[in-house]
């Protein structure tokens, strides 16, 4: 969001063009890989759900598709260094997994275990819950750097 403000890293060059490492490099590269896996997995799953049995649970399947879209955006934004877009998508992802997770626990019938975010991502080793936190932490480390 805002690039100014915050403290300049002590061991970091003051100039913006010496980004060490880039948003999609170092640990960020692993993050992009994980997001890519989730993007493909969520997209295929949503596509199969919507194509074969959309009428069964339209809300859940539309949410699946939305989650897939968020993962796609995040993969591209992180890989290409669009920090602001990645920040926004990460926030949506965290909100999504918390809201859908809570709703799916409170009202299981509305979410028949069919989205990535159901049960806080319990069907995916809770990775969907942990991922946005790690993502935001990684993005915050880039606060003072130009991307």
């Amino acid at each position: 969001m805002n690039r100014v403000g915050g403290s300049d890293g002590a061991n970091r060059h003051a100039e913006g063009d010496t980004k060490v490492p880039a948003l999609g490099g170092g640990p960020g590269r692993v993050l992009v890989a994980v997001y890519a896996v989730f993007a493909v997995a969520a997209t295929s799953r949503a596509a199969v759900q919507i194509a074969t049995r959309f009428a069964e649970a339209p809300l859940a399947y539309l949410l699946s598709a939305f989650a897939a879209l968020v993962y796609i955006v995040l993969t591209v934004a992180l890989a290409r260094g669009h920090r602001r877009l990645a920040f926004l998508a990460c926030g949506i992802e965290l909100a999504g997994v918390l809201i859908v997770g809570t709703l799916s626990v409170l009202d299981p019938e509305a979410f028949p275990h069919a989205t990535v975010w159901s049960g806080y991502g319990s069907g995916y080793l809770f990775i969907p819950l942990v991922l946005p936190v790690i993502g935001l932490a990684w993005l915050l480390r880039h606060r003072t750097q130009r991307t």
Partner: protein
Amino acid sequence: MGIGLLVGLAVLEIALVVQAVMAFAQVEKVAERATFIGYLVGTLVIPLAALWWGKVERTRWGPGVIAVGAFTVAVMTGRLLQIWNGAA
């Protein structure tokens, strides 16, 4: 990226190709065919994609990308087994 990791990745890919060929040969036994084939293709593509994305990274995070890919293949192979047994 070390030579050991590359050899390991090559062995994995060969094993996955063998698995995919054997599974394709009997794909009519499977009920959820589209999903099954999707997983098979996924397991073949992922190690190569991980290699492509990880090899430019000169730090220890490069092999980290390979690890993510390998873990994904493990999970997908588990799902393949579930689908296979579910149809048997």
